């Protein structure tokens, strides 16, 4: 459960930006870090926690907007160049934060206390994180699969020229998708800022997990991500608990490798095949 919500929340912003736009955002970790900083600073200033988290997400959303307008906008349809640019962005953000805020920031206590099952304590906040992860996925699924905006944005990413000639303001679609992705990265940062120590490299702890989850998820950024997060989460936490964290981490990576080898299009490819079957037989 724990591992699941971590993988999902780590991946969610990236899933939108990579899954929808094909932009490999190497600054994803730094976006998360920025969210954590904003949330932490606001909380330290006395802003209530939920509000601080929301403002963190919004702040990173705004930042994403600026980054998009200045840089990413010029790189639509050039995913390789965006690798270079986002790498540059990540260098600037990481070091910039170090220069501005120093190497560390006072962390905050996890809210909501803990509960006990058997003789083991669990943090309530962790449970809340799990619920939030699920909720976010439902919301995102709904937004991207069942609203006009979602449809247009998916269409734009597949064939920009045709979407444009069908009356979709495609540059706005790109921008909003990037901003939403940034917002979710910021949200993740905000949510985890209460459980982790805060510093300029805060985000790099999410990077590996987020990439693995998103890519194992495959082409469909949402369904795929959930399934990948679920499966990898079980593998990871199971192995970590029984054999220790090292095996857990290696197991996560090996599971990802084997999975992709068996289903070379990732989870969404697998699901789509199943779905077609089901639909045909039902209808």
């Amino acid at each position: 459960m724990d591992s699941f919500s971590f993988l999902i929340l780590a991946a969610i912003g990236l899933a939108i930006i990579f899954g929808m736009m094909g932009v490999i955002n190497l600054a994803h970790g730094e976006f998360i870090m920025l969210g954590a900083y904003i949330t932490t600073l606001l909380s330290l200033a006395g802003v209530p926690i939920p509000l601080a988290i929301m403002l963190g997400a919004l702040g990173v959303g705004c930042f994403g907007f600026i980054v998009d307008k200045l840089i990413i906008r010029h790189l639509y349809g050039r995913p390789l160049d965006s690798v270079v640019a986002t790498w540059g962005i990540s260098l600037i953000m990481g070091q910039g934060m170090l220069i501005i805020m120093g190497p560390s920031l006072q962390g905050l206590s996890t809210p909501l206390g803990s509960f006990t099952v058997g003789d083991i304590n669990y943090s309530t906040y962790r449970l809340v994180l799990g619920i939030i992860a699920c909720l976010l996925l439902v919301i995102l699924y709904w937004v991207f699969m069942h609203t006009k905006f979602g449809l247009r944005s998916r269409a734009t990413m597949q064939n920009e020229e045709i979407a444009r000639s069908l009356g979709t303001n495609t540059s706005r679609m790109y921008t909003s998708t990037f901003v939403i992705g940034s917002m979710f990265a910021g949200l993740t940062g905000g949510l985890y800022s209460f459980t982790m120590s805060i510093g300029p490299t805060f985000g790099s702890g999410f990077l590996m997990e987020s990439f693995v989850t998103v890519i194992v998820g495959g082409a469909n950024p949402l369904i795929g991500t959930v399934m990948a997060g679920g499966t990898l989460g079980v593998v990871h936490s199971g192995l970590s608990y029984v054999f220790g964290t090292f095996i857990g981490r290696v197991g996560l990576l090996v599971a990802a490798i084997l999975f992709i080898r068996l289903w070379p299009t990732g989870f969404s490819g697998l699901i789509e095949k199943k779905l077609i079957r089901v639909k045909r037989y039902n209808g």
Partner: protein
Amino acid sequence: MELQPTQNKQVTSNHEKILELKNLTIDFGGLRAVNNVNLTVNRGELRGLIGPNGAGKSTIFKLIMGIHSPTAGQVILKENDITKTSTWQRARLGIGIKMQIPGVFGELTGYENIRIAAQNYVVPNEIDEEINRLAKLVGIEHLLEHEVNNLSHGQQQWLEIAMTLSSKPELLLLDEPVAGMGPEETAFTAEIVQRLNKNGVSIIFIDHDMEFVRKISERVTVLHQGATFAEGSIAEIESNQEVIEIYLGSDVYEGA
């Protein structure tokens, strides 16, 4: 009935079969796109394959090339079962295909496109000569240095035909070779196809341009909902009431 196999054998000795499809079937989910199709093409034949949109024509080509593998049935090339052979090997066995959606390398030049297509079949020091010959043949020699993405739809179509020819196939599969071509270009294509056929290339083609079909084809197979619907000479087919109903429609446009 008992005698049929022997009869068939006789046919074989006269006309060597180049391609044989046996009970070919493929399902996509619950959709049976190709349904138990049997088709024999003899060496040197020029066979048309027509039928409504979504009848399964292109899918049959893909099955012949091994892009899809069939749910059931076999593909037999020159008496060898190639159902399990990989795509690239089938290409090396002498099947050339022009797909329905242009499959040119958009970011390369025309020259590079033909070169890639030809180099597996032509000795290295003749390759430039061959490229020029092919380009001239289809009339795109002036476009060889252009990036293919910048060519018009029709020009890409020509390029693709040149690429297909460069492998000197024994069996040529053409999926809608004249789509998007004007009457003059269509006629020209017909000429090329016929010439190739005279030189011994067996050809199966798909097209919706009945004038083109009429012009070059001796025998036509009509496919409908994945299954063979009718087969015969072009005249027979064109007068087949059912075919008119499902496919040809009234003749209002003829004679243009």
